[in-house]
């Protein structure tokens, strides 16, 4: 009897929270809403260490936080969400840590492939963005399967930056542009400016089909981009709440959206000028 009452009470609580959240969202959406939010999910390990949890527990809780943020972004009608899952520089960490992070990523990717997953429920289309050749064959294969499995989803696009750095993205774009233009090069162009233009570079960026992020949120109070979306963040609002990634919640997203709305007129003008 007590257990049933307990379950009822927690269900009621959850329903109430959802109701309050929906009210706040409906107020927020009166103003402009970011089309694209990017997250640097910093602080999983520190969170686990602070609470004396086992290795890997921080990342698992971080994944739960990510799913919640995806849900809130979906409710807010944000169209694109980008996350910095694994940098090329992270490969320099201890092999056991790299291995365990890759294993976790693979598990979660495989979770996406299941029908009843949140991804299909919310209509999330997933892209894996980065130098995928650097991934192990099994992770790469899972990523490709997940991209294929979510092709039909169209509500939200989730870009997972894995084996990614911005400098690598730009290098890759230049390399591809040069390859593409090889035939023209052989004709002997005089003017170096027409060899490669900004349009050529942008066309070959991993993030080519996606609008630039309106907001980048980096948790754990660190205020740097760490080689994430350098090209795309020229005019992006940068938020750096001090909470660790597993602690991120709805109120932090609300705060970021309010900051975005305060800066909106400026950002709109920049878009008109470019």
């Amino acid at each position, binding site marked *: 009897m007590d257990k049933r009452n307990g379950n009822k009470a927690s269900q009621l609580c959850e329903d109430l929270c959802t109701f309050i959240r929906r009210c706040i969202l409906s107020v927020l959406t009166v103003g402009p809403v970011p089309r694209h939010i990017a997250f640097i999910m910093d602080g999983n*390990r520190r969170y686990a260490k602070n609470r004396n949890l086992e290795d890997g527990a921080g990342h698992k809780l971080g994944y739960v936080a990510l799913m919640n943020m995806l849900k809130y972004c979906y409710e807010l009608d944000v169209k694109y969400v980008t996350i910095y899952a694994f*940098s*090329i*520089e*992270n490969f*320099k*960490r*201890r092999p056991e*840590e790299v291995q365990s992070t890759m294993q976790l990523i693979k598990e979660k990717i495989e979770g996406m492939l299941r029908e009843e997953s949140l991804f299909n429920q919310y209509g999330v289309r997933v892209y894996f963005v980065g130098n995928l050749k650097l991934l192990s064959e099994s992770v790469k294969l899972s990523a490709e399967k997940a991209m294929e499995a979510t092709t039909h989803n169209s509500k939200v696009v989730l870009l997972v930056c894995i084996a990614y*750095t*911005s*400098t*690598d993205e*730009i*290098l890759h774009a*230049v*390399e*591809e*542009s*040069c*390859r593409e*233009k*090889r035939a023209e*090069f052989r004709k*002997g*162009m005089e003017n*170096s*400016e027409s*060899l*490669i*233009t*900004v349009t050529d*570079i942008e066309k070959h960026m991993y993030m080519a089909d996606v609008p630039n992020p309106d907001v980048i949120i980096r948790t754990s109070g*660190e*205020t*740097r*981009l*760490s*080689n994430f979306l*350098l*090209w795309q*963040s*020229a*005019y*992006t*609002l*940068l*938020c750096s709440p001090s909470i660790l990634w597993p602690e991120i919640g709805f109120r932090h997203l609300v705060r970021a959206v309010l*900051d975005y709305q*305060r*800066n909106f*007129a*400026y950002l709109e*003008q*920049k878009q008109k*000028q470019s």
Partner: protein
Amino acid sequence: MTILPLHLHFSLARSPLKPHSFPHARPQVVTGPAENSVEVNGTYPGGVSGQLPSGLRRELMPSHVAVIMDGNRRWARMRGLPIGSGYEAGAQALRRIVELCCEWGIRVLTVFVFSSDNWFRPKMETDLLMELFERVLKDELQHFERENVRVSLIGDTTKLPKSLQELLANSVGTAQKNSHLHLIMAVNYSGQNDVVQACQKIAVKVKDGLIKPDDINKFLVEKELETNCTDYPHPDLLVRTSGELRISNFLLWQLAYTELYFTNSLWPDFGEDEFVEALFSFQKRQRRYGGRNS
């Protein structure tokens, strides 16, 4: 709502407008622990021996600081002054920071003087700025030579008034031995354009058969970026004043691992105390470059 700031230049007290009060920040001599004091090539401007303010550690000082000098117009508006006064005050603030960098052993200071986006401002305002910049630059050049400050320029100067172009060409000195500070002025600069022009130069090498597309790596790009004029092309610390939280197309590639410091102070009010606070914040941070501390 802030429109992109129009950034700043140097000024001496020839300005007809006396600023109300902002700190004439002659560097304070602070007696700190002996290991913090450094004397480089004799005395610094003002005869100060180069000791760091208390609390700052010599070994954690950034080699390269970049600054977006935002808030000059707001500063003037808040005081009911014309915009020109804001820029003049901003120039004084910059002069203070240059002196402090010299004193504290910061090797490179890059300042966002004028963004290529700023051309969208009213012509009258951009003309005023160009005139101001030219005037104060003329005044400052000898000052820099005396203080052993090496000056470089990044950005596209071809759109600037001819007289300013000539002045800038003359102001960029050849490498001075043992210069206290390398001051890099970003004039009509865009971080994206910098990357594009570097990529274009690399494309020329591919076209000429000097390199293959497979050979393109980050070192090749960095060699062609405009910041190749310094041994420290990547800022350790970027400071942006006036509370705006964005990069605004400044030094994009070079900022990959730069610590970003945003402060609500308006640029003309950014003095020694504010700079110390920024440096203190920088020194507390853990820079991991994608790795781990432990």
